[in-house]
């Protein structure tokens, strides 16, 4: 079982529509760069509440594709920002970007092969 994306799990969540899943993937591919940029800008600003909001938004996006690695990392970032702790945020963002790359690759693979 993939730690990144399980299509069957998401299909069960949304009622089985492969068409809807494809549309969700298309929308995510379009909006995620803005969400990443929002997190980067908030970290640069040093505003922990802005970081929490930006990461919360990303967490909401990736949660639609299963509560897997990208979700768990977003959750951790959100909790640290809520605790006003931004010390590890740059490193966590790098990890999150890697997880997003992995998720996007699997989502792309699904749209091509399913």
């Amino acid at each position: 079982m993939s730690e990144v994306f399980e299509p069957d799990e998401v299909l069960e969540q949304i009622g089985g529509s492969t068409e809807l899943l494809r549309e969700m993937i298309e929308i995510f591919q379009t909006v995620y760069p803005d969400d990443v940029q929002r997190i980067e800008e908030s970290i640069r600003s040093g505003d922990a509440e802005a970081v929490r909001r930006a990461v919360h938004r990303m967490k909401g996006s990736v949660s639609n594709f299963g509560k897997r690695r990208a979700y768990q990392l977003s959750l951790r970032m959100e909790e640290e920002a809520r605790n006003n702790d931004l010390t590890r945020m740059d490193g966590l963002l790098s990890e999150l970007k890697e997880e997003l790359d992995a998720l996007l690759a699997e989502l792309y693979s699904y749209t091509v092969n399913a």
Partner: protein
Amino acid sequence: MGRSTMKIIAADDNAVSLHVLRTTLKYWGHDVLAVPDGGQAWKALDSWGIPDMMVIDREMPRLSGDELLERIRVDTRTKDVYVVMLTARNLESDMKEGFDRGVDDYIGKPVREDELRESITKGTEFLTGKMGSTTRDELRRGNIVDFNRRRLLK
């Protein structure tokens, strides 16, 4: 007796989640307006009209779900609208407080089709008089029980 098509405003700042809500509710035959924040949901009451139900995210820019709910409950046009709140938080204390402030039902995020269906069906039955003498408070108390049951099953 009663109609099954509801007029529903869905509000969520997450584009993927909002698309799932809009598509699913429309697929079930409801008349749906999807908006990306609480401010636009509030404005839509004038431009689109008063809905039967609103499915709103808790954390949204401009006007949060909690702030939007507060306005809905004090406005005579909207005080009886059936409000379903989406939340990533699953704290029972949050739920009880929310129900006291006028949330009719909660759904955890990400939205599951079966949970959304259950909530919308109950709201439809309540609004169309199919629940007989069930009061709003009784409905909400039942929804707390159902929410906790769903949470325990996860």
